[in-house]
């Protein structure tokens, strides 16, 4: 049995002349939570469609649990729960009918868990899917995705349309719980604060390329915001590499992407930079720094 839940190698997707994904590669271990972030149009949804075997890439391979996602999609879907970016169930169907329909397609189906989750979300089974709010539709999709106790849960921007309470519930209770139980989770999101606490690894897409793919802890440990009381004469980039450098009050602020205490002390002792304050950064701040740095 493969230890890798997801393996994407050299993936490229094009729409005519437009490049949606270019030479993307990533691996997600079993039981890991992988957060893929990126701005709108970065290529996340195209990558997810390839991941789910819904779209054939022009180039590259996608393997789920060691099996080709395009060729073995049908059997793989027995093991994978999916919450798509847009609510895709027919609007005329009731939530109960959707559950009945899905239950007939899967080998294992826990109707009780579906009903329990929908009760918890406050979504009646008799409601027409089309009449639900965007957030409720996501909740219905999530309830269906979890009814099969998936080995892999793919969530394409699941917090879109959810209110703050529902979002917190999704991340802390549902995803957190699943992560604790060893379910592999692949999530694309803009809500970095939400995934920060439980994501094991994070990837970042820009213009179709994966520009970052790293363990969250390692990423967070190497990014620091350093505030200098006075304007530094120069920073030895061989020691610390500033991604962003700007004025801050009377001094300056640098965001470095290769921070470690030893290097910082060496920099401080080698340069006459006076007082400096070092702050850890959130994922969101790192994302903005990288995105801003790349754009500049």
């Amino acid at each position: 049995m493969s230890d890798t839940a997801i393996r994407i190698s050299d993936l490229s997707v094009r729409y005519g002349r437009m490049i949606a994904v270019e030479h993307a590669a990533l691996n997600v271990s079993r039981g890991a939570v992988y957060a893929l972030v990126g701005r709108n149009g970065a290529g996340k949804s195209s990558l997810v469609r390839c991941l789910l075997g819904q779209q054939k890439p022009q180039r590259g391979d996608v393997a789920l649990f060691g099996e080709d996602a395009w060729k073995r999609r049908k059997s793989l879907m027995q093991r994978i729960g999916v919450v798509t970016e847009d609510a895709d169930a027919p609007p005329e169907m009731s939530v109960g009918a959707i559950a009945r329909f899905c239950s007939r397609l899967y080998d294992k189906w826990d109707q009780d868990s579906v009903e329990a989750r929908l009760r918890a979300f406050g979504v009646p089974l008799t409601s027409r899917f089309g009449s639900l709010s965007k957030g409720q539709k996501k909740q219905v999709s999530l309830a269906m995705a979890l009814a099969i106790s998936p080995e892999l849960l793919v969530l394409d921007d699941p917090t879109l349309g959810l209110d703050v309470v529902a979002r917190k519930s999704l991340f802390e209770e549902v995803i957190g719980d699943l992560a604790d139980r060893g379910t592999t989770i692949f999530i694309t999101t803009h809500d970095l604060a939400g995934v920060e606490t439980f994501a094991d690894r994070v990837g970042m897409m820009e213009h179709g390329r994966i520009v970052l793919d790293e363990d969250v802890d390692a990423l967070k440990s190497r990014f620091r915001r350093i505030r200098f009381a006075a304007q530094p004469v120069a920073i030895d980039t061989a020691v610390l590499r500033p991604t962003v450098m700007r004025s801050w009050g009377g001094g300056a602020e640098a965001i470095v992407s290769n921070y470690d205490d030893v290097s910082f002390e060496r920099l401080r002792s080698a340069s006459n930079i006076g007082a400096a304050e070092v702050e850890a950064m959130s994922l969101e701040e790192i994302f903005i720094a990288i995105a801003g740095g790349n754009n500049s």
Partner: protein
Amino acid sequence: MKNALVIAAREFEEKRFVAYAAVAFAVLPFLLAVIPGINGRSPLDTIAMSALIFGTTFAVAVAVISGASFVGRDLSEGRMSFYFSRPAGPFSIWFGKLTAGILMIVGCFGLIIVPARLAAGQHWERLVSSSTTWSVFYILSLAIALFLLAHVISTFARSRSPLLAFDFAAAVICGVSIRLMLLPLIAGDAAVIVSKLELALVIAAALAIVCGGAWQLERGRTDRRRNHLALSQFLWGTMAVVLLIAAAYVAWVVSVKPSDLTGHVRATRSAAGPFAVITGTAKGRGDYRAAFLLNSEDGTTMRLDPWAEFGVHYTRDGRSVVAPRRAANFAEILIYTRGKSEPLDTGLTVTSGDFVASDDGNRIAVLSRPNISIYDVAQKRSLTSARLPDAKYLRAFFVTPDVVRLYVTQQEGTKILELDVRARGLRETGFIASPGYLALNADPSAAHMLVRQAHSGGLTLNDARTGAPIKTLATGTNVIAARYLRDGRIVFIDGPDSATVLHVLSADGTQQRDIPLGAKKWAMFIGDDGARVVVTDVDAKAGRVFESINIDRGVIEQRQPTREWVTSGAFDLRPPIEALREVFYVDANSHIMAWNPATGAKRTITGG
């Protein structure tokens, strides 16, 4: 299979409101039947008629609407991922949706029709001329065809892909190819092959769409443009293969050779020259009728429009054949000449009526009521025209290249008229005051003619231009055939069926020789070679035969049994210029055979 049924059930459930609407339409005919002023004479007729209209309209409307949406809308609205995010294969998704769509069409039609059919009873049978089963079959086939067509158009149009231009071009090419493929078959009167081929193409297109739908979801899945591309590739690829196979079949059908003709063979033959038109069907080629112009001297053949056999004219000099070729709603007149490999297009077209050619084929008179026109082939223009009188029977021939003589049989008798290119007018030159049909045969110079009255069985020698009687040749002797020979002598056959006699007379009607022929039920002269007269007759003993009679020696030299005879100038108004060398007939095996009346030698023309 299970998943397909699950998906079909879901689709069906989603569209259950359509079924509710069908139930409402099923009730409507019964309501109409009780409304005064609408229900007509028979409420049951009203029920049957309105149910048929409602059922058909509803089925067609449901077919078009659901065909345009059952896959295309899911793709364009991004809802196909609902299925593809689950363990359902593309084939299950397609056939599930397809099954639901077709069942919805059939079910709705049934919901509207069945109650009315049961209530209307005999009134239904009166309304629907063919059997109910076939009517229902045709309506549902049409609805399902529209359903599939709507799916294709919807998939193509909703993708908003530039590939649409290719699809349009491919559809036009397919249409044009089919038309070009069917044209030679239609020209060959192959109605059965045409209808079978059309049905096969429709079935192939339907299968291509059905299989293409599964293929598009397999290749395109949730991507509408890739769905379009996959369906387009499959559909047009399949149609290209099908059309190639169909074209190869059509090419094989129309590639029939004269020797292949074995069924329904027919022929006409020039009275003197080497030309013959032979037509027939060939084994394995259905009802396709091929026609050939055969030059029996050198054995060469040319393809003719099969319809040409009904309008072909052989020139008196035996050198040319004037034959029509269908083009749209008119016929073009072509001239095939001995020694020339291609026909001459005269530029002359005929929409109705008949035409006759001059002895050398350089002029053609078109008798298209109410007008007659003389055309010069070389100049490609009309030389003169005139209005024709009303006629029961109309016969004509060129006396000279400038003069066409007409025998116009009316109620009171037969008028003789001439149209002269130089005089530019139709002039009455004579009249034969004898009601009814007259069998006429003119001498080589067209100065005299034999007039045989069908009702009296008498035969007279008349002036061919004025119709004035010159001499009575037979009265009350039951003349059954009369004709001028090429040298101007006269021959006729009369007598009781049990003992007929061939009389040979000089040009002025003087008796020369009588030759007893024995018991004949019927006889007709075919032609002569100077020494022999060839007669086709029904002999009391031998049945239908050709007989070659030596009129100098007074004996029957050759006899050849036939199943059917070939005209070979038997109906020509004047004897040919050249001597008769060969006649055609159809033997017991439906082969066209050539027979030499001088030697009795035979050779196979078709089927050998």
